[in-house]
């Protein structure tokens, strides 16, 4: 018995010391994710020794063990570039949608298909190549950083030294495929980022909350992905199921009511804040009172493009094609050193530390498809539309990057137009700066009608903002919304203390206060005057 007590005392002592130490060190906070050790060392596999003539030969080697992987990939949106929207019935995906950047992927292969998770998709009028060996394993599973899908080769890396960017004199060397194959591993931020950070034709151009600064971000930029924070890979949240990645921009989970995902109870997809943080994440009850109407991101992503990489906010294609006196393309730059005009692409405006646009959103996004007639007399045209409204319990206020610009449309058919901007032919916009020719070629290429008459329409496009979450102390203050100059001014449907009010109530109220004060002052003055009279 005495022994037991002694043991207990020792235990308490140790716990106390640990507790004190913990207090000294600070609260545990966020620790980097620990990864289980791999069960295979790929450098020990004979089939990965090479030599490989092409990347697809590496895929063949992979598939000898990972027999189901190619089939799984080919069932995903990453492969098909098609997305059947269950709510709207629209068929979306890169194969179908038009955006306000370079228009459509169709008519711009092989530049666009350089980001396809496969090899050799040169004609998007056809489905991607059928062979299992056309699947690209390395773009997601390379850990060396040496594997790079060359921008103009429809998904392949270059196999000979090749200049990029064109005219820069910088040569890209062929990758060491055996070394890359022997060092494959789980996906990391740089893998996903090699495509998703560069959407729209360059670093940070498209999303605003996804750019190369997230490869190794500071805690203040992204507390989850920072090596000093959670060091999350993308797939820690975008959890996968047989190579199918969760989290969609076409059908966003705008309000995750499942809360923390517990095995056996929920779907285990973690692509929402609530998947880990639950539905009542704040210590202060009043903050938890906000989660039914506000997406986490609305307060916790105070601004996007914060990592030093600008994002495009305005892209006016109508001014493209101006050449200098020597008929050479020109480039101009703004005060911040960001490109503001290119003969190939027209006028741009870039932004950093951009305050998002806010809107009610239930997660469903509808697109203006390329063959859809729209009202050409009421610009700007919404390239995509956000569903959601204040009284819908499934909607919350979300932050968006609002991309604006001007892009070509058919004045007779009243439809948007696919543009042929890239191509090693004499018709692409970037080779001859001739819009009619490029539009005609795009029409011939895709089979989409073009009357020959076109103009430029101002357009808007919404991109949900969800990444670049800083530590909680950098979240928006109450006064960012609860003030006269509220970020949510004009959002509608909610009474926001500190911002909303009733003009007449205020007028009458302050008038009553002023009259009372005046009455009191007059009465007091009269007392003084009468007293003096009496005394004198």
């Amino acid at each position, binding site marked *: 018995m005495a022994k037991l007590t002694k043991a207990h005392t020792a235990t308490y002592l140790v716990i106390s010391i640990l507790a004190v130490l913990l207090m000294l060190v600070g609260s545990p906070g966020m620790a980097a994710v620990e990864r289980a050790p791999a069960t295979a060392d790929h450098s020990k596999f004979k089939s990965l020794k090479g030599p490989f003539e092409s990347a697809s030969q590496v895929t063949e080697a992979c598939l000898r063990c990972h027999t189901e992987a190619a089939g799984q990939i080919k069932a995903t949106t990453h492969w098909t570039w098609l997305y059947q929207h269950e709510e709207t019935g629209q068929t979306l995906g890169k194969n179908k949608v038009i955006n306000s950047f370079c228009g459509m992927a169709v008519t711009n292969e092989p530049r666009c298909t350089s980001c396809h998770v496969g090899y050799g998709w040169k004609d998007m009028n056809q489905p991607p190549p059928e062979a299992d060996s056309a699947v690209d394993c390395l773009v997601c599973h390379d850990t060396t950083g040496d594997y790079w899908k060359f921008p103009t080769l429809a998904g392949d890396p270059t196999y000979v030294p090749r200049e990029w960017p064109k005219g820069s004199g910088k040569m890209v060397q062929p990758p060491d495929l055996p070394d890359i194959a022997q060092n494959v591993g789980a996906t990391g931020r740089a893998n996903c980022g090699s495509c998703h950070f560069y959407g729209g034709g360059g670093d940070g151009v498209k999303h605003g909350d996804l750019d190369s600064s997230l490869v190794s971000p500071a805690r203040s930029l992204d507390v989850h992905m920072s090596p000093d924070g959670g060091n999350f890979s993308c797939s820690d949240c975008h959890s996968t199921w047989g190579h199918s990645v969760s989290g969609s921009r076409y059908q966003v989970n705008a309000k995750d009511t499942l809360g923390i995902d517990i095995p056996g109870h929920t779907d285990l997809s973690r692509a929402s804040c609530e998947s880990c943080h639950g539905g009542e994440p704040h210590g202060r009850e009043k903050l938890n009172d906000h989660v039914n109407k506000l997406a986490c991101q609305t307060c916790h992503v105070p601004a996007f493009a914060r990592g030093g990489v600008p994002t495009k906010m305005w892209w006016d294609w109508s001014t493209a094609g101006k050449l200098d006196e020597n008929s050479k393309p020109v480039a101009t730059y703004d005060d911040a050193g960001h490109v503001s005009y290119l003969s190939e692409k027209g006028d741009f405006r870039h932004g950093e530390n951009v305050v998002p646009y806010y809107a009610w959103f239930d997660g469903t996004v509808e697109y203006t498809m390329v063959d859809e007639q729209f009202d050409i007399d009421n610009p700007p045209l919404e390239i995509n539309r956000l569903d959601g409204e204040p009284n819908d319990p499934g909607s919350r206020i979300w932050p968006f990057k609002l991309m604006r610009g001007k892009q070509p449309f058919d004045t007779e058919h009243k439809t948007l137009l696919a543009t042929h901007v890239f191509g090693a032919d004499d018709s692409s916009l970037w080779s001859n700066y001739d819009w009619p020719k490029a539009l005609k070629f795009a029409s011939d290429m895709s089979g989409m009608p073009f009357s020959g008459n076109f103009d430029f329409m101002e357009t808007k496009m919404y991109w949900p903002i969800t990444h670049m979450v800083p530590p909680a102390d950098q979240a928006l203050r*109450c*006064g960012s919304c609860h*003030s006269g100059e509220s970020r949510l001014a004009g959002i509608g449907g909610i009474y926001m203390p500190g911002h909303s009010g009733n003009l007449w109530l205020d007028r009458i109220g302050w008038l009553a206060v002023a009259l*009372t004060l005046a009455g009191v002052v007059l009465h007091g003055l009269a007392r003084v005057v009468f007293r003096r009279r009496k005394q004198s």
Partner: protein
Amino acid sequence: MSRVLIFKRFERFWHWFQALLIFSLLITGFEIHGSYSLLGFGDATRLHTIGAWSLIVLWLFAIFWHITTGEWRQYVPTRDGLFAVVHYYLIGTFTGAEHPYRKTSKAKHNPLQRLAYLFFKLVISPIIWVSGLLYLFYNDWPALLAGALNLETVALVHTAAAFAMLVFIIAHVYMTTMGQTLTSHIKPMVTGYEDLDEPAG
């Protein structure tokens, strides 16, 4: 003339603590309303909530005290002498007339005071409490209530009551200066005692 205890210890504590709370609630409340920026919305809200709960607790004690001591009778309205008091404040005070009301410890408020305080206690304050609690627990409204009422209505009623409170305070503070001397009305609320034409005990 004798020195009479008019305001007992609890009464004075209640009055001054209530005054402090109401001033803090007005200052933070109108900031929350967006009239100016002083502490920042977050801190203003936190202080306002703490102040509100404190005032509610204080009121529970005060209600208990009013009932158990029978002091609630001090607020029963009467028309008897009301006109004379109003006449005094409008005219008599300038002509040098005597205040028509004779205070006793059993009837320490004149008829106008009785009306004003009763209005404060039975109209302004309850409206502020009910609308304030609805405001605070907006997210927990039962479905039936949520269907019939919205936050905007609650907020506007709360704001209107706050304006009424502010008007009351201004008038109340001014009228405390209308005793024989500027502070003779205020003194008993501090010391508890006043010299009255009433036999002691």
